[in-house]
């Protein structure tokens, strides 16, 4: 197992960090988060033209750059650092991940190039009002009516669901769970007010909407589990990026802030808190990196590792966010201070794709199965 990034990977990270710092200042984040869409086509198109971000993990055969999860996770970590407001996770992680897992060759060739170029923004809709993150909770029904497939029901908590061009939908039919694609415009959709304004969620209603079957009928349950594991690893990497940024900002603030005639960074309780924060974030980073490498290397116990990474990132990000607000004191609780932007992302990411309890349970099931 690989435990370090290559020189090329480090260089890529460095250039991306500089690029994103410029394109995604907190000023820009604040501007976009107040819009209904949460992102703009222009900025997203430009970013893909300049850096090809959406293409990173899509194979070259489908218009992508053909890198692995390690590289994609560098992208995610850096996006997490700056809270980039863009449909990356929805389109390049969730939707592309699902299409790569279950799509036919023809479907991949048809759908992925648009996603890779960023011209098509796609997303994945699987959770419903009940809020169950597991595929089994799916109720939305798929019926074949002679002409083609029709979907009826609803989806909720859909990332960028109100703005996506293409929606990959998990549905239940006669043969069990299948994935479908639907044009975004064909669906009735509504923005859901959320705790994290930098990442928009939508509720979608499917009223007998025409859909394309993605891949085979009825075989989605297993590959969907893999999509979820990959997404968990990706989210974990995005999260540790945010956590590290928060940690660094809180350290910088402590070093600058004077109280009682001295830098508050000199107080032992502050030093110990910062040491603990460093440990928590570094430990979670190790898990996120390891899980990405495990995906690339085709490890057999990827399900356990993915859940481990997500659980570790959830605890570390939230804890770091709580500490960061506390370190900033009263000012950290104000709207004008940027800390709350990450706090809210930390809180939302903790819940997204299932909380730490859920992932610990998944991890244990996978591990105990492995041992028994």
């Amino acid at each position, binding site marked *: 197992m690989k435990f370090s990034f290559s020189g090329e990977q480090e260089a890529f990270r460095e250039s991306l960090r500089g690029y994103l710092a410029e394109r995604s200042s907190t000023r820009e984040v604040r501007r976009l988060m107040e819009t209904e869409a949460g992102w703009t086509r222009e900025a997203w198109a430009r970013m893909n033209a300049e850096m090809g971000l959406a293409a990173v993990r899509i194979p070259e055969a489908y218009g992508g750059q053909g890198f692995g999860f390690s590289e994609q996770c560098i992208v995610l970590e850096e996006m997490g650092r700056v809270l980039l407001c863009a449909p990356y996770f929805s389109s390049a992680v969730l939707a592309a991940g699902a299409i790569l897992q279950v799509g036919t060759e023809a479907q991949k060739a048809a759908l992925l190039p648009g996603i890779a170029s960023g011209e098509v923004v796609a997303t994945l809709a699987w959770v419903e009002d009940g809020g169950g993150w597991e595929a089994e909770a799916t109720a939305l029904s798929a019926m074949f009516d002679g002409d083609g497939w029709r979907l009826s029901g609803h989806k909720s908590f859909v990332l960028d669901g109100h703005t996506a061009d293409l929606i990959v939908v998990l549905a239940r039919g006669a043969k069990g769970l299948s994935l479908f694609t639907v044009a975004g415009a064909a669906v009735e959709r509504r923005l859901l007010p959320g705790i994290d304004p930098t990442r928009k969620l939508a509720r979608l209603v499917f009223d007998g909407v025409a859909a394309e079957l993605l891949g085979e009928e009825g075989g989605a349950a297993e590959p969907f589990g893999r999509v979820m594991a990959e997404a968990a690893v990706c989210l974990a990497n995005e999260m540790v990026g945010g956590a590290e940024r928060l940690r660094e900002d809180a350290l910088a603030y402590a070093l600058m802030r*004077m109280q009682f005639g001295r830098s508050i960074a000199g107080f032992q*309780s502050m030093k110990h808190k910062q040491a603990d924060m460093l440990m928590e974030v570094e430990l979670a980073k190790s898990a996120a990196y390891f899980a990405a490498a495990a995906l690339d290397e085709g490890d057999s116990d990827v399900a356990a590792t993915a859940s481990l990474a997500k659980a570790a990132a959830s605890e570390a990000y939230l804890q770091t966010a709580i500490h960061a607000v506390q370190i900033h004191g009263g000012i950290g609780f104000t709207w004008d201070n940027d800390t709350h932007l990450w706090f809210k992302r930390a*809180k939302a990411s903790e819940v997204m794709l299932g909380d730490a309890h859920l992932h610990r349970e998944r991890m244990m099931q996978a591990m105990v199965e492995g041992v028994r």
Partner: protein
Amino acid sequence: MSEDAVRVEVRGWLAANWDPELGLVEWRTRLARSGWGVPTWPKQWYGRELPEAMVPVVEEAFDEVGAIGVAKTGIRTLAAATILAHGTDMQKEKFLLRILTGEDTWCQLFSEPGSGSDVAGAVTRADFRGNQWVVNGQKVWTTSAHKAHWGLLLARTNWDAAKHRGLSYFVIDMKQPGIAVHPLRQMNGFASFNQVFLTDAIVPPEMIVSTEGDGWTVTNTTLMHERRGADGLRGQPKGSDRPGRIYTEEREEIAVALEPYRWYPSRAGRVDMVLPRAIETGAIDDPVVRQEVAKLLIMARCAEWTARRARAAKEQGRPQGPEGSLGKLAASVVARAAARVHTQITGAGALLSGPDAPAGGLVAEIMLSVPAVSIAGGTDEIQRNIIAERVLKMPREASEDTKRPFRDVPRNTVG
């Protein structure tokens, strides 16, 4: 005076004077003049010089007939206590009655962007020019500044003196051109506090409280009364739902006073909602959730019983034990745990906010309000210092800023 004698007298006075169809100010003026509104105060100033122990007796008599007490919202009681202790007769004359009747509203101008936990590090300056004080600086975390008639102002009047000796304490007229009040929006979307910008704001010389340079002493009186009022057991004032003009006016007064603090119960974590919501959502059937709910309820109950233990000891006239200093810190631990448990119970719904979100948006409000509890009114770190130094008698941190002229003390230029 015995308890019974007090009871007889106050009942008699109420029988003769209480009338729910009076206006609020009219009644309170009558009440203040009688001495029953603040019975422990000096006889000369609206009181009867009764001991603390008689207060419950008087309150009971008021409750019997539903009589309303003097105004208590906001920081008026701190202002009154401070003026009573340090003010001139002119100041007492001018302010005390209107504090009790509720006609004047007050705000506290202590905290600054550069000195949150370190109130004595204030850098707002008051310079005596011509025949008046001219004030320049910025205050923050001011509640009700936009409504207040008067402010309790801490400002630096001597930069060559040591930190705590160069401060003076003033009463400042908030309705003047030199004062600009801006709301301070919080991460939870509410704006419960103000920033106050003072630009050549004026204080006439007779509005200094105590003497020049004695501001820290006076400030401590205010802060001591603030701490006393916070044992964690007090709920928000509710007002009565009885019919009658005076009750209507009181309900309005309370509603106006509470409006900016609607989220305060959320910042404490709403432990009361946890079990009902766990049952309602079905999360209670998950043994892992049960453990987390139990951990929270254990902490919350222990904190509550500890506060009651402290109060019981106080009521028995025992010296305060360590249990009396823990409430604020315990509340902060409880609130944080409550936010986590609410998240866990709520699941994916915890991503949502607004009226359609779980519990009408309260879960989101809790998650985004709880961080205030470990900061406002003294951070957890300050609380731990206080417990260690005052209760456990551990050595104080060596101070690096109290023994030299304040102008030489390193500080932030602005927060």
